[in-house]
């Protein structure tokens, strides 16, 4: 079947079989290696993408489900100002991750900050449950997300003032 959708801001179209999962398509057809198909059960958070702005585990998502919709992977998200806020916030807080869960943590933060400009620590920890990883220091992740929220707020304030 032919499936058309928007991938990282560009219209794309491809022939895919009904059983193909979005994570495999993104990695193998588009070379988007930021998506990791690890658990293939949608629980590890390493395959997260933004589907119409909402978090979705691409390893369990059949590719035909994205027909006509917008998919943003970490590669696409990295081109945005929001990414700069989050990466900067993580850096400000000296957040050290194992390197495998970082994509998930960034996208979870993006989705969280979209809902709540100033999330409470409990909300941050709740959100991070979708990216379970042994490398996580709960306090550091709270600080990192709060630092990202600060940067985002400053950027939006300056933009509003212009």
């Amino acid at each position, binding site marked *: 079947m032919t499936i058309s959708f928007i991938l990282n801001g560009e219209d794309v179209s491809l022939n895919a079989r009904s059983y193909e999962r979005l994570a495999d398509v993104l*990695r*193998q057809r588009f*070379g988007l*290696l930021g998506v*990791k*198909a*690890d*658990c*293939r*059960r949608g*629980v*590890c958070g390493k395959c997260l993408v933004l589907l119409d702005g909402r978090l979705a585990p691409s390893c369990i998502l059949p590719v035909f489900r994205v027909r006509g919709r917008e998919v943003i992977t970490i590669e696409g998200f990295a081109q945005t100002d929001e990414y700069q806020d989050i990466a900067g916030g993580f850096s400000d807080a*000296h*957040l*050290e991750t*194992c*390197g*495998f*869960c970082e994509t998930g943590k960034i996208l979870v933060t993006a989705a969280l900050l979209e809902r709540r400009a100033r999330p409470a620590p*409990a909300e941050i*920890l*709740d959100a*991070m*449950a979708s990216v*379970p*990883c*042994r*490398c*996580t*220091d*709960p*306090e*550091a*992740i709270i600080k990192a997300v709060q630092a990202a929220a600060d940067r985002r707020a400053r950027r939006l304030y300056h933009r509003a003032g212009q």
Partner: protein
Amino acid sequence: MPGSGAHGAAIDIALTDLGFEGMVHVTTVRAPVPRGRLRSVTPPRLPAGYRLILPQDIPGRNRIVSFGTEVPILAADRVSYKGEPVALIVGPDPLVADELARTTVVDCEEEDAVLSWESFSSEQVLAKRVVVVGDPDLAFSISDRTVDGVYRSGASEHLYSEPQGSIASFDYDKLAIWCATQWPYHVRDSVALALGCKDEEVVVRPTRLGVHMDGKLWYPSLLSCHAAIAAFLVRKPARIFLTREEDFRYTPKRARSSIALRAALDNSGRLAAIDARIAVNVGAYGPLAEETLSQVCLAAAGAYACPNLRVEGYAVATNDVPMGAFGGLGATHAFFAAEATSARLAQTAGLDPMAWKSLNVLKKGSPLITGEGLKEEPPYEAIAERLAAASDFGRKYACYELVRKRRSGRADGPLRGIGFAFAYQGAGAFLAGDSPNSYTVEVSLEKDLSLVIRTSAAACRESVRSIWKRTAALLLDIPVESVTVAPPDTDKAPNSGPVTLSRGLTVVNRLVEKACEKIQKQRFREPLPLTARSIYRVPRPIKWSDGRVEGMPFDMASWGGAVVEVELDPWTLEPRPMGVWLCVDGGLIVSKDRAEAALRAGAADAMGLCLREKLDIASGQVSEDEYLSYCLLQPAQLPPIFVDLYEPDRHVKSKGIGELPFDTVPAAFLQAVAQAAGAPFFSLPVGPEELSGAGDEA
């Protein structure tokens, strides 16, 4: 294919992102029973381009050597655990190869699996340790106050950042191996042995390691042999990459232990004697049996001075999956038992646990298990004071005792308890079979004053690499930005031993320091570039013989303590941790933020072992249900974790601290639950099921 033709530094690349033109995929055909005689392996009709690899196809030796133990690369005559690799299917399409492996018939004459390990036969014993210090029999005979119990630590899953795998590809006249490993040279030597070639004909290029929890010490070598044999036989790059389920069900787990500990007090309430009988289930083959058992036995008395000691330890082989290291090599098991016993001894002596522990804890000159006196003064007193002040331990402990005794029923609200534990983490301890020149680091100062550090241990955390850079920059008075760490490829970096037991700090950092000192001496006498090598000499290796152990258990140690406060829901008996306080003396702390973050992350994982992580290995296998239900503690379920880095002397070296949360937090948690429930507990995790059958009514 993405990542095609990647060459050079792979340390920042995930293995799953690597690929090569024409690469074939390797799938494992596994043993269907935990124990039996292998009769035949019959694949379905193989399509063109697919091939079955059996043990007789292995060009070299069908064995990898791990810490003195041998593990078959492919089981040839007998299978020793369910899921053991017996053959490989190689082909271009991973889905087809998977299907072919799944439909391959493995005919085994099943035998009764040997699964018992707390009581075991002499054939099951892979390693034995016996140590007697003083006269424990006499001490027990004259003491009228003793406590005993059997403390059990269960299996756990490492849940690596990335499932295990390996890629073998040809790099001109060499075979290049790409894998996430803690020990690149072990992979190289294993592959060379399997292919029957020279060590130098194999190059290992470690990929990003991520969280390994000490589970990637030897198993990557086995998978690399699979990939290398496939590549060698089909003359194409070959990749083996386990699915998360395969990794969960068939790769090594944390060893299970049972420690029967009996302890006696003298008239003054001091610890007079310990008698410990230790059984460690190391599963099939027991690749880490010697070292795991040594570590458990050396720490049998915990952080306490005991003049009379008998330790009898056995590493027991079973038909479970191989089991061994997890967040350290075994000391965590011993500290858990010793600390739980110490809390009960304090109760028997009629003392507050912190007071009893401070009285009996190791001090300068205290006899160690080797009979030698401790050479430095552990700062336990200061650690206890700081923890007591931060957590309000003394007041809370007394209050919770009083409240529990006066309690009339559930309407009184939740039960509370608070526990406290000491531990130490030895550093500079060496593994069985280490050769004196196993630990080498090379440093080069170039003409432009840039410095390159070469070590095979560079696959560690970025925070450790940044400590090496800072150390070198400080010694040579050059900007830290001009210091780089070369990729840990075995054709470029010397063997610096395995990345474990915080050696990045305790061994490699010292070697960097020494190599830089050598360069500094030559720097203004000889022209640049200059290269210096530094080799770590084994101080005095541990020797076990005739009821004695000689040598130093550790070159230096970091010291720590933890307090955990717990609340039990009166109706559901669900334990809810209220707070964790950690105080650690880790020597010179180069980056406070990162050290605190590492300790908090460790404490979070340790809390997972207390509350959630329990891996049942029934009938010799990890079931699919276990795979589907096993999960980490959610961050929101964690209590506040407070970390206090105690630095009494800024002139001491940096020491490893990564194991301390695992040594202290579970033991403190168990004591807190015991106080809240009014009954002792002997294993973790503790949940409503365990609590409902014990102690006071809630």
